[in-house]
């Protein structure tokens, strides 16, 4: 390229400041840059999507974790509840048993009384 020849004429006879080679290279660079930006954009959206996905996943996991803890606690408390229920039922059984025992004693004494009265009636009839 000559120093005095400031302007250049390209193949399509257009005057250019840059020489042809540079110009095509610039254009090429521009293209590549554009490509790169596009790719970066793409990448960003993909990564964004991924992050979202991950976030979702983490909340999901968190929730599940809480659920699991809750369930475990529930299980534990259920065991306790069962225990107290069991205690109450044992207590109830005990009460019923003692009540039964009381009724049994009452029945026994009533039967005894009945027998006594029968004896009395028999005796009474015989004496007459």
């Amino acid at each position, binding site marked *: 390229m000559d120093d005095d020849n400031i302007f250049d004429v390209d193949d399509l006879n257009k005057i250019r400041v840059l020489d042809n080679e540079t110009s095509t290279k610039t254009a090429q660079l521009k293209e590549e840059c554009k490509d790169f930006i596009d790719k970066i954009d793409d990448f960003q959206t993909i990564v964004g999507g991924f992050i979202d996905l991950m976030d979702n996943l983490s909340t999901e996991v968190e929730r599940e974790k809480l659920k699991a803890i809750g369930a475990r606690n529930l299980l534990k408390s259920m065991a306790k509840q069962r225990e*107290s*229920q069991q*205690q*109450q039922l044992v*207590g*109830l059984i*005990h*009460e019923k048993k*003692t009540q039964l*025992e*009381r*009724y049994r*004693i*009452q029945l*026994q*004494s*009533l039967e005894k*009384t009945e027998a*006594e*009265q029968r004896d*009395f009636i028999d005796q009474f009839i015989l*004496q007459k």
Partner: protein
Amino acid sequence: MKFKVSIGKKPQHDGMVSCVGWTVGDDLFSCGDEGSILKWNTKTGDTAAITKLPDGVYPADMAWFPSNVGGRQSASELFVLGTTDGKFHLVSKNGRFEKSVEAHNGAVIAIKWSKNGNSLVTAGEDGQVKIWSRSGMLRSTLAQVVALGTPVYSVAWGPDSEQILYACGKQIIIKPLSPSAKPTQWKGHDGLIMKLDWSSVNNLIVSGAEDRKYKVWDSYGRLLFASHPHHYPIMSVSWSPNGQMFAVGAFNTLRLCDKSGWCYSLDKPNTGSIYSLDWSRDSTLVAGGCGNGHVIFAGVVNQTIEWKHLVVTLQEEKVLLVEDVVNNTKDQLEFRDRVVKMSLGWDHLVVTTSSQCLIYSTSNWNTPLIFDLKGLTTSAILLARKLFLIVDSVQGLSVYSYEGRLICSPKYSGIRTDSLNVNNIAVSSDTLVLVDSRDSRAYHVFDINTGRELTDKPLYHSQELLTVALDQYGHTNERCLGFTDKNNDLFLIQIRHSNPLSKLKKLGGMVTTLMWHDTTNMLSALQDGRFTVWYYPRAVYIDTELLPQSKVYKDAGEFGKNPQIVSFLGHHCTLRRSDGSLVSTAVSPYPTILQNYVSKTSWDDAVRLCRFVKDGALWASLAAMATAAKELNTAEIAYAAINETEKVEYISYIKDISNKAARNAEMSLFCKQTGEAEGTLLQGGLVYRAIRLNIDLFRWNRALELAVKHKTHVDTVLAFRQKYLQDFGLEESDNLFTQYSKEIAVDWTTIQNKINMELENERGK
């Protein structure tokens, strides 16, 4: 019996509820650790905030002023609150702090009014127990716990308000108020004792501790019952005001227990620890302050009462089920309000709710007689043959007829209505007996129709009375009261006699429980491990020797330890064992039949019955009844049947006396009623016989007095006196006799003539 538990949806307090207390009405006050005091309306279940404590002050215990102390009802509108800063506060019903008093170093843990409301006891973290006057002046520091700094967690008054019960560590201590008296102290538990209570009705103590047990003691510190270890420490215990049961609170646990210790029911409400329990005054509801800020209410349901063929059960708070086991019918009775008390007997069911009284006849369950009650807190209903008695712990006693008419409202000065219970009241159709609430050796006798006391002063017995019971039949003037005293002696007293104490007779010792029969005046009792029936207890006034003979007994081993007689109806006696089971025993039907014959004066039938049965006890009771009715022929036969020859002889001698007054006098003499005999003779104008009676009994002074007074037979008295002195080789020592013997000459022939003349005159009359 069991609890019906109700608990709010969400806690009304933000902190744990450390204390609860019932007012005279049906309201409950509760204090939470966040410092607020709430009032609960049990009818609607609403709460209202009353006041707030200053910041940093936590409530520890509260006590309402006792409901009725000599009628000063206005004074009962305040309660006392102990707080953790060592003060106690007198707080009015609307939450105004009337007075705050510095009481202890460290917290005031427990606080209680005495039963009569005169004093207040506080127990603190510093291990001191202090007595305060009603207005908050320090009276005395009662106890300085040996190991200083051991907090006293619980304190209670004795039944007579003369003793303090408190817990220190594992020790239970009873300290009388008088400074010189020695305290009783024993190790109660293996862990720290958290709560104690002492019932004024049955005199028993219940304690709960960190060793997870509750125990029942008598007032001498003897262990009556110890529970199995629970899962959690016992935080609270409380006697019901009627002394029949107590409640026990622990972590998520509420128990209802019988007074002998065994458990009626167990509930596992979600409450956290139940720190304090308080019964409503009618013993139907218990409230508990819970660790999670709840206040739990538990009503007592499923009580059952039986009478003859009827069984009445409280199914729910407002529903009664009446079962007739003979016809196998069931009736459900529903009420507008909560049922407070019910009582069945004498063909009537009497039910009191929180506002009304309903009287059902057992023949008709549809149309009760209803009237409104004055008082709100019925503590007992006692039935008699023609009337019944409602005991209200605030208003006192009211006697109604079964037609719903108010007959009277008896009271004596200084009556403490909250101390009235079935053990210190006896009622019959014409007479009412109340044991004095301040001094249980004294008892007041009322005429039911007038509602007035028969004597100006109460009658006094040498020992404290434990139980009293009146017989229901016979003439009003011969009404007998049977009672047992502190030594477990059984006495009979003709309560309406002009001089009742002269008619006080001991029937026997070692008697724990007694009951009169429903249709006759038979008396049953448990005496020294034997079930005893006196066919005719009034025999004690006629011929004491007949009493042991007219008594039958059988071994009471099958009834277990310390049973109570529940009913004595027809030919059955029902007893309640200490484990709560009912046992019955048969009693011969003959004494009932015999008493029926006697009350209809069909003596021939009575004699025939006795001849048929051939039972000594029956003959003995017939002898007593015939003698009481002055039916000499029957008495002679009956005495002959039990081989009392000398008495037969004497009766036939009496039969030969023609003069009626003389005969009656001899009968009185036969019953060892010399005063009465003399009175009868003098009234009948038989002065000679009266004098002779005294001579025969060696009551020389009285004989001379009578002779001088009636100006006759002075010489007879002197003659007999001389003879007596001669026979015994004695010298005259009485001045009166020496004086008269100087004035009057003694001549046996004239005396003999005079005597014969007298007897002649008598025959002529």
